């Protein structure tokens, strides 16, 4: 179905090729998982299969690529789009329409489908991807998990033979990941050829027929799922891969005692008069990384904004070390690594970003960049860094900032094993310097790695 023969690819202005001598075959009906460290070429392969890079004049491609027996280089972009459906990483920016049904039907409108064809495709895609209840909704109000299933439905609606997915789980909680896994399993049952690039292997490995381990721009080894499942942890870490089994549940621990750190009592907050959560108590002690876990859409990002003094609470108090703290004081004491990390990077270089113009912090900043694996990028403009690198740059900002409350919103979405460990180490360093470190995360593997104290943010409204 998909045939790559000695494919080489170099991006514009890049000093080394993104793919070098990359050859592989994927049979019809196979589900293949692409694994490997960040920057190894996984996304590049997907963007060749869906044709996006073939028609990009600044990118140099050589070698043979065949999709469904046709030479991909000879096909127009829209002809490739008929054969291959794509789901991208960021649920926020892959929607062209504002309502769900419009989005799913979009590919059919582009192909000039008739109204009855569209109705059938919509019903089928909605059923397979579990989005029937969302059809009339506005996309902007949906949770990350729902958005990603809609992205699946709109890729699937045109009934392509091949579906490619680029880190579809990066922003999802475990429940949404399981829903996504069901969609993938159904595609496989229908005989679709599916190619998934992922760091989080545990959910995808059950569906995969084969795992391609990509390194330095080519398939270095292929594994069966069982080979990876039964590989010992040290060998797996050597390959830079995350774990292949579902992270175990966290055993509950007794809550911290005393009143050091942040103690919240009876917090209630609302968005446009609709309560987000009500009457919440929690305690975030100093000296230990605290993880706040819970479903997509449970109001965790709102909590991050409250902790940083960016959002008002309707009732309740936030005490720090026993002192009632006002919003303005919170803003002066806190630092947030946002989920949307692009919103907070504005330095001319990575180094300038971390020092924030304060020359005396230069040594510290170099050290922080080094720790997060960005040592070679100090002089680069943040906008030229990859998504994962920007994420770690914001963590370096937090490390160097003199604030004593550090809030991180999904800092590991889309990081490979090594980078996840770097972030985990950085958080430990912050906690050791007696700061309050709060991580909002769905990534249970990361919670285990960082040995965090877990506060389960099960939708508090329901809990009441």
């Amino acid at each position, binding site marked *: 179905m998909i045939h790559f023969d000695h494919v080489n690819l170099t991006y514009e202005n890049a000093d080394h090729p993104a793919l070098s001598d990359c050859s592989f075959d994927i049979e019809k009906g196979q589900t293949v998982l692409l694994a490997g460290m960040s920057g190894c070429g996984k996304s590049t392969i997907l963007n060749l299969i869906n044709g*996006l890079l073939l028609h990009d004049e600044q990118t140099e491609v050589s070698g043979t690529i065949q999709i469904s027996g046709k030479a991909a280089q000879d096909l127009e972009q*829209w002809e490739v*789009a008929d054969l291959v459906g794509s789901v991208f990483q960021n649920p926020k920016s892959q929607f*062209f329409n504002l309502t769900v049904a419009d989005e799913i039907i979009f590919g059919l409108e582009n192909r000039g489908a008739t109204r009855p064809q*569209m109705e059938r495709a919509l019903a089928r895609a909605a059923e397979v991807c579990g989005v029937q209840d969302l059809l009339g909704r506005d996309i902007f109000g949906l949770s990350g998990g729902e958005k990603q299933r809609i992205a699946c439905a709109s890729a699937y609606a045109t009934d392509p033979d091949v579906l490619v997915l680029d880190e579809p789980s990066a922003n999802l909680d475990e429940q949404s990941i399981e829903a996504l896994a069901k969609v993938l399993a159904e595609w496989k049952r229908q005989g679709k050829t599916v190619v998934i690039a992922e760091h989080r292997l545990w959910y995808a490995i059950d569906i995969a027929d084969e795992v391609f381990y990509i390194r330095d721009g080519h398939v270095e080894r292929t594994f069966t799922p069982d080979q990876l499942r039964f590989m010992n942890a040290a060998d797996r870490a050597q390959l830079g891969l995350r774990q292949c089994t579902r992270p175990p549940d966290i055993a509950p621990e007794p809550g911290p005692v005393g009143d050091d750190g942040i103690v919240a009592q009876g917090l209630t907050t609302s968005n446009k008069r609709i309560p987000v959560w009500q009457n919440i108590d929690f305690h975030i002690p100093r000296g230990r990384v605290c993880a706040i876990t819970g479903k997509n859409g449970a109001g965790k990002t709102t909590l991050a904004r409250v902790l940083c003094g960016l959002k008002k609470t309707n009732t309740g108090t936030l005490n720090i070390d026993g002192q009632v703290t006002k919003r303005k004081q919170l803003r002066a004491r806190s630092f947030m690594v946002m989920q949307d990390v692009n919103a907070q990077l*504005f330095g001319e270089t990575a180094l300038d970003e971390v020092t924030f113009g304060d020359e005396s912090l230069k040594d510290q900043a170099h050290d922080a960049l080094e720790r997060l694996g960005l040592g070679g990028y100090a002089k680069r403009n943040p906008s030229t860094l990859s998504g994962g690198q920007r994420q770690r740059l914001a963590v370096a900002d937090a490390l160097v900032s003199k604030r004593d409350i550090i809030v991180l919103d999904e800092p590991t979405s889309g990081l490979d094993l090594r980078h996840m460990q770097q972030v985990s180490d950085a958080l430990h360093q912050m906690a050791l310097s007696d700061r309050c470190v709060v991580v909002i995360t769905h990534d249970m593997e990361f919670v285990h790695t960082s040995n965090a104290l877990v506060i389960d943010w099960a939708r508090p409204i329901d809990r009441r």
Partner: protein
Amino acid sequence: MHANVMRIDDVMDSHDRAPERDDGGLDPRTKLLLTLLSCFVVFTAPLSSFSLVFMGLFCILFIIERMPKLVFELLAVYVGIMCLAQFIIPVLPAQVGVMLAVICYGGVIFPCAVAAVYLVKTTSVGQFVAALRAIHIPNTLIVALTATLRFFPAIREDFSHVRDASRLRKPHGPQRRVDCIYVPLLLNVSSTAADLAASVTARGIDNPCQKTSWHRIGFSAGDAIVLAVALAIYAACIAWRVMT
């Protein structure tokens, strides 16, 4: 995930509820024409009672669409601008007055703004595209226009994140303060644009076939009445202009 408990009649039922034609409301083409007419009226007779009557027409349309709150908001803005022009600017020093005069210009073209708000607030992107296809606008232009519409809510979301970030970091000095807003905003906009472009290309936007629309549009008696009223106002406006 409900896939395993789903029945096909549920599916039919739920997409019957999805926005389609588009019952009630004006045809998007009528709304486009109204917007165009409002511009003609404003440029034929700026700040005249014709402009006011035209705005009155939109107020009625908003109320029919059950958006009375918007009427009050728009009126409040208009009254505010008029008060600024009538009472405040005359007593201010000339330099400040010149700067504020730009806002007063907003008062002149206000009817066009009202028409645009009506178009945007009462038309889904799907209906809008269907209308543009019906009047044979080239596909490239349609894509550009709808992408722009799609951008506004995204930018609003991005902007609130950027503002949060800059409130937390408390940049010193005007240069840094400006950087804090526009650098991340530009970065966000350009990365959203690149992602969106990839997403629409991967779904065959450049397919050369005749495109179709999920949304059905069509003229009704309501369209005829509204257009007749609007044209009458414009005709009266021209007549008045010729006579004076």
